[in-house]
C-alpha cells in the first residue's frame, strides 16, 4: 500500500499529486472531469488505475503530463520537485513519460529522427549517430519491432499493436523516472501483450515508478501492481491490492459506485 501520509517531496517518493482537478472547455462553460485526485508513488512501485470507460482516466493522465487544453488545479511533484507549472516538454525532460492510449501520427517525420530528437531532449545532449543506431537496434530487438520501422513515419499507418510497442520502446530508451501508461494493453493480441508487458517490466526498476491505466486484469498478471486504484466519476473511490482487481473482474464497477454513493447517472 502506498502511504498517503508520506510527504510528496519525501526522497522515497518519485511521483505525487494532491487535489488534482481537471476541467475541459465545454462550449462557453467548463466541464469538470477530474474531481480531486491524490496519488503517492514511491520509487520501485507499480500502481494500477482501473475505471469504467469515460470515467476520465485519459484526461487525468494527459493533464498530469501537462496537456495545454485542460485547466488543472492541484499540485504535482516529480522527484520532490513541483512540476505543475511546467510545460509538457519540461516535465518530460525531468523524467515524466506518457504512453498514449491513441498515439498520434506525425506524417513525414521518421521514427529515427523523432527518437533521436527525443533522446537528445531527455539527455540534454546530442547522441552520436553510431551510438544511437546501436541503442536503437537493441531496443527494436527487445520490443520485437521490425528494424524497417526506423525509417517509417511516426505512427503513420501503424497497427494498434505496433503503436503500443513503439510507445514502450520509447519508455525503454527515455528511461523515465515516472511513467503514465494509458491503456497500453488495449488492442493487443496475446503475443504483443507479452512483449509489451516484458518491456514495461524491463523499464521498471527500484528507482522509478509507474501508473498503469487499464480496464483488464490481463496485463496485471504480467505487470504485477503493488497498488491498485479504482477511479470513477472523477475520484479515486478505492485503493487496494490485487484482490481489488479480482473483485472488479467478478462484480464489475457498480458495487463500488453504490458504496461511494455515486448517482447512477454519473457512474462513467
Amino acid at each position: 500500500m502506498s502511504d498517503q501520509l508520506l510527504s510528496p517531496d519525501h526522497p522515497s517518493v518519485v511521483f505525487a499529486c494532491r487535489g488534482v482537478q481537471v476541467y475541459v472547455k465545454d462550449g462557453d462553460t467548463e466541464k469538470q472531469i477530474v474531481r480531486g485526485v491524490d496519488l503517492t508513488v514511491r520509487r520501485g512501485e507499480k500502481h494500477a488505475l482501473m475505471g469504467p470507460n469515460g470515467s476520465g482516466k485519459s484526461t487525468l493522465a494527459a493533464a498530469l503530463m501537462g496537456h495545454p487544453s485542460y485547466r488543472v488545479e492541484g499540485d504535482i511533484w516529480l522527484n520532490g520537485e513541483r512540476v505543475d507549472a511546467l510545460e509538457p516538454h519540461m516535465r518530460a525532460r525531468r523524467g515524466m513519460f506518457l504512453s498514449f492510449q491513441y498515439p498520434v501520427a506525425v506524417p513525414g517525420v521518421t521514427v529515427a529522427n523523432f527518437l533521436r530528437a527525443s533522446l537528445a531532449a531527455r539527455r540534454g545532449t546530442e547522441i552520436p549517430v553510431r551510438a544511437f543506431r546501436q541503442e536503437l537496434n537493441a531496443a527494436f530487438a527487445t520490443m520485437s519491432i521490425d528494424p524497417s520501422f526506423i525509417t517509417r513515419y511516426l505512427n503513420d499507418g501503424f497497427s494498434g499493436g505496433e503503436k503500443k510497442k513503439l510507445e514502450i520502446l520509447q519508455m525503454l530508451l527515455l528511461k523515465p523516472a515516472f511513467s503514465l501508461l494509458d491503456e497500453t494493453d488495449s488492442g493487443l493480441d496475446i503475443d504483443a501483450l507479452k512483449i509489451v508487458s516484458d518491456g514495461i517490466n524491463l523499464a521498471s526498476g527500484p528507482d522509478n515508478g509507474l501508473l498503469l491505466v487499464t480496464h483488464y486484469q490481463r496485463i496485471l498478471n504480467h505487470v504485477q501492481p503493488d497498488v491498485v486504484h479504482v477511479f470513477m466519476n472523477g475520484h479515486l473511490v478505492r485503493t487496494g491490492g490485487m484482490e481489488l482487481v479480482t473483485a472488479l473482474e467478478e462484480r464489475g464497477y457498480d458495487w463500488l459506485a453504490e458504496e461511494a454513493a455515486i448517482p447512477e447517472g454519473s457512474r462513467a
Partner: protein
Amino acid sequence: MAEDTTSVIASARPALDEGLLKALAATLGGDAAQVSRRLAALARYEKAAEPDRVRHLWRFTNPALLLPASVTGAPATDIVLTSAAPVAGASVTIDLWPGQAPAVQTAEDLPVGALVFTAADEPFAAGGAPAGDLFAALGDAAWNTGVGLQVAAGVKLAGPIHVRVHASAAAVLPRVRLDVGRGAEAMLVEHHTGGGPDVRVAGSTVINAADGARVRHAVVQVWEPGTCGHLAVRTRAGADADILTVCGVFGGDETKLELGTDLAGAGAHSEIVGVALVAGKQHADVHTSHRHLAGHTTSRIDYKAVAGQQARSTYTGLIRIEERATHCEAYQENRNLLLSSRARADAIPELEIHNQEVSCSHGATIAPVDPEQLFYLGSRGLDPHEAMGLVVRGFLENTLARLPDDARSMVESFTAPRLATIREGGA
C-alpha cells in the same frame, strides 16, 4: 477575398515610350529586330486590359502592388558587379543584373556546340502568354536583363544551367528563354535573389521542350523583405517530352508566381512540385496551369505552403483538358499548413474538362498544426518550437521526396534556414 476589386492599376502602370525601349535595347546590345519586338510589345502593353480581379488568377493579389513605379533605360550604375563564383557542378552559371548584359561563366568541360546563346526575347513559334496579358506585355517591351539558351538536339547537359537573377534595382525585368532540342536533357535553375524595400520584379521565363526532351526547371525565390514581384513561367512540352518544374517561394513581401505548362504533344508529361514557406506579413500567391492540348498526356501537381505568423498563402490551380486531348491523366494536390491563428490560406482548384476519356483528380486542404501532435512531441521532451519545426519538415517531406536527389538537396538548402527559424521560435 479580394480586398479591393476597384483597381488602381491605371495609375500604377509604369509609363513606357519608344525612346526608353530603344535605350534599353541599346544598353543590352540588342539588334534592330529586338527593337521592333519591343515596340510591338509596347502596342500590346498600351492596349492590355487591367488584370481581371474577379477571375481567380488575380482575385487574391492586387497587381498594382507588384508593378514597378517606373522603368529607366540607363544602365544601372549603383551596383557593384561582384565576380561571384560559378555554382559548383553547373554547366554554366549566368548572373543577370538589371541594366547589364548577362555575365556568363561556362564550365570547362562543356562540349562545344552543346549550348548556344540566343536572343532572350525571341518568341517561340507556338505557346506563350495570352495576347492581352499586362505583365507579359510589360516584360516583352521593357525587359532589362535576360538570357536565351538553346540546348542542341540529343545533348544531355551534365550539370544544370544556373541563372542567378539579382533584384538590384527599383525595377527588375528579367527574362529567360530556354529551348531544349529533340531528345535533349537539361536542368535550369533560376535563383531569384536580392531585392529590398521598394524593389519590384516582373520576370518572365519561357521554355520550349521539343519532342522527347527532358527538362527540369527549378524556380527559387529568396527575395529580401520589402521586395514585391511577379514571375511567370511558360513551358511548352512537345510529344513525349518530360518536364519537372520545381518551385520554392520563400522571400519578398507580396509575390506572385505563375507556372503554366502546355502539354502540346502526345505523350508529354509534366510534373510541378512546389513549396512555400512564409512568415511575418508575407503573401505568397502561386498559380499553376496545366493545359492538356494533346492526347495521352499526363500532369501532376503537388504544392505545399506553410504560413506562419500573419502570413498568407494563395493557391489557384487550373487543369484544362481540351476536347481532342483524350486519354489524359491530371492530378493536382495543394496542402496548406497554418502555424498561427492569424495565418491564412486560400486554395482554389479549377477544372475545365472538355472530354470524358480522362482521369482527373484534385484536392486541397488548409489546416492548422494539430495540437495533439505538438503535445505528443512535447511529452517526449521537444520544446514547442522544435516540435513545430519537426511537424513542418514532416509536412513537406513527402513532397520533397518526389524530387530527384540533386533537386531535393537544392530546395532543402533553401528550406533549411527557414525551418531553423521556426525551430528557434521565429515563425
